[in-house]
């Protein structure tokens, strides 16, 4: 990895942080305070730094452009537009135009609480974590799966043990990568606001890059060698 141990450490921290940011982007609508801060120079610089450390600075461009544009605009009107976009994409009517649930994309029955949910729920139990009661959605929501990656990414290794990168790679391969690319395509096609389009495309690029990084970290062969499409 470029830059040696210091860079590796900052990459590790940055990827965990970026998972957290992306989780938050899709977990709920943004309020005025959050939006105003995001559009400010401090948050944008921080986001650019995270993206750079994770090799997705270019892919963060659209999102950042949207935030730059947002600075100085009336936050109330923008937040309303974002909330409307969030609702039609992720809430309803119907499932929403891009419902962010793995089970809807991978279960044979195309309904909530499929096998993907069971597996993610089992992982939460094994890790000793659970979704907050206020977040009224099943565990295979994109925000939860991204939060799980953040948890795994910033969890310190057990003393004297190597870092369990493979656990993260298994979750990425076994869950996120199985559906997020298709979901991102739906968001890209249906989103009315630059924010959700930009955040989704950043997520797409980040997942790909992070998969490559994790494979190197685990010594696994690159995805192209054994990927089943």
């Amino acid at each position, binding site marked *: 990895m470029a830059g040696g141990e210091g860079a590796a450490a900052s990459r590790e921290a940055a990827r965990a*942080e970026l998972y*957290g*940011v992306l*989780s*938050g*982007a899709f*977990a*709920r*609508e943004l309020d005025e*305070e959050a939006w105003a*801060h*995001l559009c400010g120079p*401090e*948050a944008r610089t*921080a*986001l650019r730094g*995270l993206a750079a450390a994770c090799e997705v600075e270019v892919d963060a461009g659209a999102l950042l452009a949207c935030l730059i544009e947002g600075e100085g605009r009336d936050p109330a009107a923008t937040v309303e537009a974002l*909330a*409307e976009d969030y*609702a*039609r994409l992720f*809430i*309803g*009517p*119907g*499932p929403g*135009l891009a*419902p962010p649930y793995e089970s*809807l*994309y991978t279960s044979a*029955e*195309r*309904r*909530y*609480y*499929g096998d993907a*949910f*069971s597996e993610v*729920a*089992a992982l939460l*139990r094994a890790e*000793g*974590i*659970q*979704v*907050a*009661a*206020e*977040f*009224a*959605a099943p565990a295979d929501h994109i925000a*939860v799966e991204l*939060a*799980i990656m*953040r*948890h795994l990414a910033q969890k310190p290794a057990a003393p004297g043990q190597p870092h369990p990168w493979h656990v993260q790679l298994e979750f990425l391969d076994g869950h996120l990568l199985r*559906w997020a690319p*298709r979901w991102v*395509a*739906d968001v890209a096609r249906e989103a009315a606001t630059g924010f959700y389009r930009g955040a989704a495309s950043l997520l797409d690029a980040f997942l790909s890059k992070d998969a490559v990084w994790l494979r190197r970290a685990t010594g696994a062969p690159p995805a192209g060698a054994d990927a089943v499409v």
Partner: protein
Amino acid sequence: MQPITRRVLLQRGGVAVGGLIAAPLIGVSPAGAAPEGAAVTRFGNAHWGLFTAEVAGGRLVRTLPFSKDPHPNRIVTAMPDLVYSSNRVKSPMIRQGFYRDRSRSDPSARGREPFVRVSWDEALDVVAGELTRVKTQYGNRAIYGGSYGWQSPGKLHGAAQALQRLLGLLGGYVYAVNSYSAPTLPVISPHVVGDAAPRSSAWPSLIKNSTLVVMFGYDPLVNAEILSGDGGHTIMGFVAQLRDAKIPVVSVNPLETDTDLFLKPQRIAIRPNTDTALMLALAHVLYTENLHDRAFLDKYTVGFDRFAEYLSGRADGQAKSPEWAAPITEVSADAIRALARRMAKSRTVLMGGYPLQRAVHGEQPVWMMITLSAMLGQFGQPGGGIQIDFPGRVGAPLGTAPSVPGLSTGANPVKDFVPINMWVDLLLNPGKTIDYDGRKITYPDIKLVYWAGGNPFHHAQDVNRVLQAWQRPEVTIVHEYSWTATAKHADIVLPATTTLERNDIVATSQFIAAMQQAVPPMFEARNDFDIFAALAARLGVGAQYTEGKDEMAWLRQFYGAAAQQGQARGVAMPDFDTFWQRGYLEFPATDAANALVGYGDFRADPTAHPLGTPSGKIEIYSETIASFTYDDCPPHPTWLDPGEWLGGPLAARYPLHLLSPHPNDRLHSQMDQTWLRQRYEVGAREPVWINPQDAAARGITNGDIVRVFNDRGQTLAGAVVTARTRRGVVAIHEGGWYDPLVPGQPGTLDRHGNINTVSSDAPNSKLSDGNSSHTALVQVEKYVGMPPAVTAFTPPPGA
């Protein structure tokens, strides 16, 4: 070793970006939380019978029919599909325009504007605010709380009842009477026999004693799938016994029903909406050939002689003979004559399906059926008489279960009501006066419509009129668990739980059963009861609404009342906790119940057991109805021109009569969003049955997408070419979800096959003002080009 603790997955603070938009998603669980993942079984109930639910890993895995159900149906196995449907309403939502401008928003935008998600607090504040505003500005007569629906399966969580309980405490609401299922029975039956529905004999008694069964528009194998509780589907078993006993059956129906396929009866493929004419002709044969029971008529009925003036033709110059009836019904005079003679020679039971009522003049077939049975003189005799009542339960022997009370709706200070079929007219024509059962009703001016536990866009006929009506109120509020057309057209949508997401209790005469919550509420759904309790708290009536009781306290109270009653009657019931553990209690039918003969006591002693009619007898001629002087409901059974029928002038433009039977794999519109749809859909649309000759004449083959249309509207459907429907008759099962091409635009094409695009909401008479859904003429043509995709269920993308 440290115990595993649940840790916060995302922490505040840290990098500025993450700290602000990554609010804690994962929380800490209390110590000693029960391990999830263990498999449990819950007992439950839905409209398709009792069932057990298997829950493992925090999700509902399977629902299986109750082990004691002798005829379980597959619908009950689709409950997981209902609970986890991609169509679930996940959050409280408000239509964009309404969110911004409230009652000043454009109501014509309903159904085509996006929604905004709001918190429960905000949603409840808005709803409470609107209720207060409308009440203050216009009064309680501006609130429509009829909220018709097919009832929720439980004593506590009845959505409409929970709504009406709140509205009653707030000063009242305009309500509705009768039903779409039985639009005329509860009106005509009291006039003729003094009961809300004629008393049936028990099936075992009929099987033992009848020697001829004549069915009019009746399909018990399909319709009896729907019940609530009851434990088992018993009617199917009785139909099988009917076959095994080799009792001859005659089935009068334009369609060859599932029951017909099973019983292989003598079929009379009558022209739709002409059953009254057929029955009059049968009566004419009995009368002119002296096969009628004069002694019975004299002793147990009033008005036969005046009716005979009409029947014979002395009154109007037209004898209601088989020759008269033949061109009307398209049943040969010989067949009519033969059937009448056969009926007179046999111990005959006449069975009427509910559909007889759902046509113009829908009280006439009911009245005439009772009259015909009276003329046979077998009323109140074992094996004779009539049967017309709720098909899931009619003739099922009664058990001894004490009755279990439910949530009371309390008093309603508002006295305004409409027959349910007229709610559309109510919204469209405030101030209009209509006739109903001898009364005048003047419509109030509705400003707020609140619907919980129903889908008016599906049960009301003529959906284009529904659209227009729905645009009239200032605010429309809907509770739903599924994004039905009604929810999509609402201003405010509140997510409700399904029956598996809460606890309740169900009771019939044979079973009292626990409905044990299987899974937590989905997403942000709440029980209707809890939603209304929260509104009640905001509106100052919280304590009266809940009476300080939580869910289980209410159930214990209901059960306790039944147990007390049971104790007084010598029927033992265990304590509540034992009952709840066990899941159900059984109260089998007694021998007396199995032998019940409808009106047996009346026949034995009409003085000691008079009917609840003015004369105490069967009223073939009703002085009461005579006093109404309704041109569309004379004082005795009468054949009246249906207007929109194959024998009328409109048939030149629309030569096919559309019938809309109850579907096999749904309860009306319920379950259309599940996998059950795969069993019957044709080209992703609701199927339409069309006779091979009618199909050939239109170049239609099996599987084609067709357009079904008339002046009222148009819908696509998938053709099923079958001789099960006679020439000139097409059939689309009711309940297919409405999927407008241009939402909110009256007349737009329905892509999926909701029959109410073409049906009429004209009331069937001034007496009942009920629905005439089986009176509709249409044309059918092959759809040319690529049919537009169905989006009623908004299938998840990437699929």
